[in-house]
């Protein structure tokens, strides 16, 4: 009897624990859905009230104007895209080349040190990057280009480039390291020099991994707030046209005004700004997921013809 009881108790215990673990796992799913749905529900009515086209393509953001204010985010959207593009261009090219160096040109004893440095770069908080940008990069640009402020897209992209560097280096290096040795050896056997083999065979072979690292970098750069806010100048009235000109991005607009929002409409429109940002980021995240899934599929050896060895194609 007691044995049966114990068994029953045990199975109940097992089941409860399993359900507890399941709930914990389901929590992240719940969290994502809550965040997305909640922000949509809070933000979309505001967009509807302001008028979708006037919101997206409007260039005036003035919460105190007229009755209820005027809310157009075109300047911020352009600013975000501009800063992201420049930052990724800078950080991406630098990052990929650095990854090639670490993976293929770096002496062995330096490799660990370099990766350690890159990891450290990833650990520095964004506010410290912003601080560095504010007290070093901005004054430097002000002097160099004889600009009135030195704020704008250029310092923001430099800071962002540094911030996404570790992401790009880390993932690109993994992709480069994963290229089969036979690719490289085949190229060298055909008379290619080391650098020719690396840049003409190994890097193209790691292309998809490198692209995926850059997509991840785009997502990071787009959502970055505090480092950008300190160097971009925060003038929402300008449509970004020059590299050195105070502008605003979607993220910084939220931080700058959220604390002092004038009334419910203003708050709602700031949430709407967040919704626009969230949609951008979700699109990038999803495309990354699908891109990676595609990569996984291509990696499976289904399509390989019989008798073809790993890297045989490249060596031929």
């Amino acid at each position, binding site marked *: 009897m007691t044995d049966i009881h114990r068994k029953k108790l045990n199975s109940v215990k097992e089941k409860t624990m399993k359900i507890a*673990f399941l709930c914990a796992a389901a929590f992240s799913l719940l969290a994502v859905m809550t965040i997305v749905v909640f922000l949509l529900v809070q933000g979309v009515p505001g967009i509807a009230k302001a008028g979708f086209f006037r919101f997206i393509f409007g260039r005036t953001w003035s919460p105190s104007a007229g009755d209820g204010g005027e809310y157009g985010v075109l300047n911020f959207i352009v600013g975000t895209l501009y800063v992201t593009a420049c930052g990724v261009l800078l950080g991406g090219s630098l990052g990929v080349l650095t990854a090639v160096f670490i993976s293929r040109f770096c002496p062995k004893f330096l490799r660990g040190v370099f990766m350690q440095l890159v990891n450290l770069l990833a650990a520095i908080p*964004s506010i410290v990057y912003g601080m560095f940008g504010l007290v070093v990069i901005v004054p430097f640009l002000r002097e160099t280009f004889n600009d009135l402020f030195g704020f704008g897209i250029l310092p923001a992209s430099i800071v962002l480039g540094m911030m996404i560097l570790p992401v790009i280096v880390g993932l690109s290096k993994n992709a480069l390291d994963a290229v089969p040795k036979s690719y490289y050896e085949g190229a060298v056997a055909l008379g290619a020099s080391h650098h020719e083999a690396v*840049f003409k065979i190994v890097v193209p072979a790691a292309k998809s991994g490198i692209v995926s690292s850059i997509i991840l970098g785009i997502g990071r750069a787009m*959502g970055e707030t505090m480092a950008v806010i300190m160097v971009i100048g925060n003038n929402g009235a300008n449509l970004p046209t020059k590299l050195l000109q105070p502008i605003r991005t979607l*993220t910084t607009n*939220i931080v700058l005004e959220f604390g002092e929002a004038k009334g419910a409409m203003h708050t709602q429109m*700031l949430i709407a700004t*967040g919704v626009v940002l969230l949609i951008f980021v979700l699109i990038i995240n999803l495309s990354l997921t699908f891109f990676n899934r595609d990569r996984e599929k291509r990696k499976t050896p289904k399509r390989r013809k019989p008798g073809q060895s790993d890297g045989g194609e490249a060596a031929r």
Partner: protein
Amino acid sequence: MKRKRKFSVSLCLKYASFAAAGIAALALVGITLYILISGLPHVTWNFLFGKYVTSTTMAKDEVSIFPAIVSTLILILLTLVVAIPLGVAAAVFLTEYTKPGSKFVKAIRLAVDTLTGIPSIVYGLFGALFFGYYLKLGSSILTGTLTMAIVVLPTIIRATEESIKTVPGMYREGSFALGAGKQKTVFKIVLPGALPGIITSVILSVGRLIGESAAILLTIGYSAKYVVGSLTAPTTNLAGMVYFLTTEFKNEAKAASAVLLILVILLNIGATLIGSRLQRKNKA
């Protein structure tokens, strides 16, 4: 036979990659040294552990980051208490209780990936509205705790999962063979084996909690002059303190950045040490 020397793109790229690596290294060393050298001279005992004295005359405030340190510690403690059990349990479910291909697992993984990718400002917006406004917690440590728990959750799940995967299947089989149930195996065999990963995730989370600023400003605020008296009062963390100081107190902001940077570097080194120990253990 010598090949003809000609202009070669790949040779140029080779030197470009050398230059890029040099710039990357220089950027890191430059930032670190600049912040430390310009900040550390302003770090005094009073700055770290004194009282923040708001000046009544025109003179400058006597700045102290002590209130922010206290709030950061409270924030770390509370957030980890919420997030660690949740994250570890989720990781256990994903590794021990499911088949790798199931739809549910895929959905959860997608969710965890998405959580990683959401910018902290969006978390801040959500936290401020959901916890602060609708649950009426206001700008407070509690709001910040609940928000940051979601922010660090994916990190904890990932690191714990990786660590659980290194526990050999033999151990589990041995445990089952001795008559232990699933639950007992998880708590007595799997989790102790995964401890290094859990500790790494704690370290990474602490780094995030110290250095996070955007989400913190929106949920906890950046009023950092007094040691916080209750969990529902607005305050800030170390990174928020840096932001608070940048407008008026440049030198103090640099000093606070230096403190922040040192803490982050120490945490990073700690995580690396544990990681390499874990690797050695796996090889053995």
